[in-house]
């Protein structure tokens, strides 16, 4: 059974680019436009990993990670941040929130796939 990855980004084209790479590698993908949308979709779905943008309207990525980690059932759900932010202070913020990796855009699909397989071994 294919592992499921949730891609959260307010940019539809970015979600599409990430989804294409993941689907080509055999992952199942579900998408959300922001943190709040993602939390709602997370409840009814079995997700193995989350790839999340940082700067989003409604609910940003850091807040989303904090919210997710508050829930016992998702305490160990790996979250990878995918953002244009490269400032160390923001990375540290993400790490403190509970993110497992920080990828700076633009990315190559193989970078994402390599990071995904590292965070979610087969």
């Amino acid at each position: 059974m294919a592992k499921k990855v949730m891609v959260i980004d307010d940019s539809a084209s970015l979600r599409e680019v990430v989804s294409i790479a993941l689907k080509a590698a055999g992952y199942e993908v579900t998408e959300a436009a922001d943190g709040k949308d993602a939390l709602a979709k997370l409840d009814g779905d079995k997700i193995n990993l989350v790839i999340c943008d940082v700067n989003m309207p409604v609910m940003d990525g850091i807040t989303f990670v904090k919210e997710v980690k508050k829930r016992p059932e998702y305490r160990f759900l790996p979250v990878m941040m995918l953002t244009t932010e490269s400032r160390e202070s923001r990375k540290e913020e993400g790490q403190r929130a509970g993110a497992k990796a920080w990828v700076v855009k633009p990315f190559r699909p193989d970078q994402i796939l390599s990071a995904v397989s590292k965070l979610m071994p087969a």
Partner: protein
Amino acid sequence: MPLALGVASAVALLVFGEASLASSLCALLLLGASAIGGRHLHRSHMAGLIDARRAGADDPAHLRRLCVRGLPVWARQIQTSRESADHAVASLTRNFGDIVERLGATLTAAKYSVSGRDGQVEDAVAAIQQSEAQLARVVEVLGELHRSKDSILEQVRSYAGSLQEMAAEVRHIALQIRLLALNGAIEASRAGEAGKAFAVVVGEMRQLSGQSAEMGDRISKKVDAVNASLAGMFGDDVSTDAEAASIEKAGRDVESVMARFRSLTTGLADSIRTMENEAERIREQISDALVDFQFQDRVSQILSHAAQSMTRLGAAAERRAEEGQSVEAWLDELASNYTTHEEFDNLQGKARGAGAAQGVTFF
């Protein structure tokens, strides 16, 4: 201003996207959107300037009113352009994604149409070679059967000849017995009363001779009938030679047809391999183009921050709050919302450098 931002974005896009097809398309989209936005804005901006000049443009109060009215308009124009570009790039990305997917499906279908279950075109060539070998064996077996038939026929004909000779011998013996019986009858007659008993034996011998001759004739007729039947079944020597020639020709035809099949299949396999390589290259190029589309996210964020800054400046001008705020404080506030290294470089008036370190950091 929107036109300038559009031009700047398009240039940035071409630089980030390394002038790829996707980057060029999106640059055109941004330019188009900004040109439309810019034209509307230019009209309202010019109208504002004309109003201001009419009312005394040197007055800072007029400049502030201009900011109050103009900046929100600029912000909305930027926002509209950004949303249009977002929408268009998302649509382009989806379409390119579909192309990649359909290209892969078409390629797989083409491979399966000329190959085995595992989709290898080499299997088709191997299958043709295997069929060729099997058909060659069939022709060989037909040849062997033909040769066996000739051999059997020859043997049967030989036996028939022997039987004819034996029948002739039987007839010859019957003739000699008949002659012997004739001589015996003469001698019995000469012996008079004493030869009467011998005459009875001679009579029996004559009957036996007649029966033997009849038997020889019947054997000859039967052998002739068997020969006629064999000729009917297998034909004469001419027809068996024609059969041999036909089998040989069939073998050559099978070889020729299979050679054509092999040539066609090899050509088809080569075409599919070429198509596969080309499709793979196209897929890679489209994948690269999709990666280039990520520029849109950065451009969108930069435009979004610029629009937000304009809105805040407009609001500040309305509140006259800028009078109490230093330029540095204002720039610091701007910077607090920035995310991309390009925005920080622009804020500091730097030329675009190599950019921040990219890649993956694991915690």
